[in-house]
């Protein structure tokens, strides 16, 4: 098993904090499962919609939101395993080409929730190249803090769709869990974005 991800310099919890704090009006969809805990640790709030299931659904959820709210910036943050399960959605995003959507894959080359088994990115698969091949023009891979800082403005402000693989360390971390009540998560997000009359 490839062990290289155990020494990647970027720590996912720090990356989540940097992204969440880059814009206080950023709307965030996080995928099953570690990116949920990362963004909850960074600051559990109503403008984050964490998916506790629906594996493969993070990108299309973010796309529906971005199309519905073209003046708001939407970030999908998900893991490599979750992205691989719904990889075709990147082509759907490319065809729609929403300017307000960014996708960041936190790639630790592992299935974190099931025992850190390697994903296909640990050996041969390159998600940024895949996104490029599926039609997303603005893609790339971030491997350290300098690159993250240099790319941050692009991720949260540049015309999208933007796709970045962020190589993060495969490391054991404590769980920081958001509410798992889906109705509550949906309602708090809609109330924050659309006002109390949306409920």
């Amino acid at each position: 098993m490839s062990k290289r991800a155990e020494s990647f310099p970027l720590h996912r919890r720090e990356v989540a904090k940097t992204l969440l704090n880059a814009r206080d009006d950023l709307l965030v969809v996080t995928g099953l499962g570690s990116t949920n805990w990362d963004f909850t640790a960074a600051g559990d709030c109503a403008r984050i919609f964490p998916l506790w299931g629906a594996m493969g659904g993070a990108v299309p959820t973010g796309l529906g939101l971005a199309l519905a709210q073209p003046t708001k910036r939407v970030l999908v943050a998900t893991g490599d395993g979750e992205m691989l399960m719904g990889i075709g959605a990147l082509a759907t995003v490319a065809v729609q080409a929403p300017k307000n959507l960014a996708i960041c894959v936190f790639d630790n080359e592992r299935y974190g929730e099931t025992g850190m088994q390697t994903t296909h990115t640990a050996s041969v698969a390159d998600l940024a190249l895949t996104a490029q091949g599926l039609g997303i023009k603005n893609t790339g891979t971030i491997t350290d803090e300098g690159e993250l800082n240099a790319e941050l403005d692009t991720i949260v402000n540049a015309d999208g769709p933007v796709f970045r693989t962020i190589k993060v360390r495969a490391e054991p971390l404590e769980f920081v869990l958001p509410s798992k009540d889906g109705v509550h998560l949906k309602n708090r997000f809609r109330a924050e974005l659309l006002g109390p009359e949306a409920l």
Partner: protein
Amino acid sequence: MEWGDDIYKAIKEAGVGQVAYVPDAGHKRLINACIDDNDIKAVSLTTEEEGIALSAGAWLGGEKCVMLMQSSGVGNCINMLSLIETCRFPFCAFVTMRGQWHEFNPWQMPMGTTTKQALQTAGCLVDEVEDPSDVGAKAAATIHKAFVGQQSSVLLLSQRMVPIKTFGK
């Protein structure tokens, strides 16, 4: 299939902003009407389950999304429908049926004969229509059930209403 115009009318009257679809012969007329409509974002999917999550995301953003697919695609949706069920998102889909009426392709039978049960098992409320003159009223009711009644609401469109496909055999 002129009944597609009746579904289109119901979609317009309900103020639907997004229509997600997988290309389908039965829905062709309706899909083309949605693509040509500048007020509808027509989203072509690579697999039906994307449309479930897209619908949820649209609702998070305050927009209604309707999904168009074929019965074989229902099988691709099952786990993703947990998103609708768990978060109680409104969901609306129109499904053209295969494996039901003069079906020439045995590969369409497994999903075609179990579509309704599969959807119901996944928490959807399912209605069916076989008479083209009833499509308009049932389409409006299906959309109302989804977005006013806030349910997971699916209308199955009988294979009797689409031309018999033979691939020349």
